[in-house]
């Protein structure tokens, strides 16, 4: 007979009772590894930083496991921690260093002179474009367009109202449109 699968919230409650990273935390790590990795990669843009950030996210999930009060879904809380961790790491590094990394990546990715070249340049363009935004607006746009979050999910992750999310995304698009009129449509 199959045992009933524990929900994320049940596992989180179990992890709160564990003194160390026990079976419940390991199960949560297993469930959210891919999701956290995607968020970190999208927000940081390279594998090395994404791996560092994803590990840091799980350390924070462990050390702050007593703070999950169950007011939202556990997955939403995890996504919020992941986004805040990435934003903290990005703020810590500074924009100049990021540009160097992105330029290096673009050079490395340019191999055969076909679609790969175009893709790398588009990617560099995209990241350069998004650098004009502040960190939170940039993260909102990436999660909205790259990960297809809806406004309710964004509002829960960023702890904003739905209308505030819509307004910030709209303002971010206007700002991009002003700077790059050819790339952004109305």
């Amino acid at each position: 007979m199959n045992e009933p699968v524990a929900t994320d919230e049940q596992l989180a409650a179990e992890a709160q009772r564990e003194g160390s990273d026990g079976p419940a935390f390991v199960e949560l790590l297993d469930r959210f590894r891919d999701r956290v990795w995607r968020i970190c990669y999208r927000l940081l843009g390279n594998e090395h930083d994404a791996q560092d950030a994803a590990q840091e996210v799980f350390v924070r999930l462990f050390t702050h496991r007593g703070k999950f009060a169950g007011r939202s879904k556990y997955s939403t809380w995890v996504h919020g921690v992941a986004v805040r961790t990435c934003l903290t790491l990005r703020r810590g590094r500074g924009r100049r260093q990021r540009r160097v990394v992105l330029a290096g990546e673009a050079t490395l990715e340019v191999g055969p002179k076909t679609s790969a070249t175009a893709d790398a340049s588009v990617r560099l363009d995209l990241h350069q474009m998004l650098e004009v935004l502040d960190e939170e607006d940039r993260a909102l746009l990436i999660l909205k367009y790259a990960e297809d979050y809806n406004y309710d999910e964004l509002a829960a992750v960023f702890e904003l109202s739905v209308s505030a999310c819509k307004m910030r995304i709209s303002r971010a698009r206007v700002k991009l449109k002003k700077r790059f009129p050819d790339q952004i449509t109305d």
Partner: protein
Amino acid sequence: MASDLLEQLARHEVPPPPPSATFDHDVHRRVNHTLAVLHVVEFVLQALPHALLHFMRAVGGLIGFTITGQFRPVKQDTTKRDSDESV
């Protein structure tokens, strides 16, 4: 180039995450390191001051005895004595 460059964000593939064994091992190592640091901080901020306080009381008692030639009167636990008498 697409009419809206933002729409192209979704087209960029995310590489697969690092192998779970390596990743989990690194996470556990970092968690253990964090726990060790937290325990040291807790020890320094809580246990050490507590121990120092008791040590200083003993030193104070020794100095008091050296000066006055008498031990400080020890406070009696009155609640315990009362309960003992009631039995």
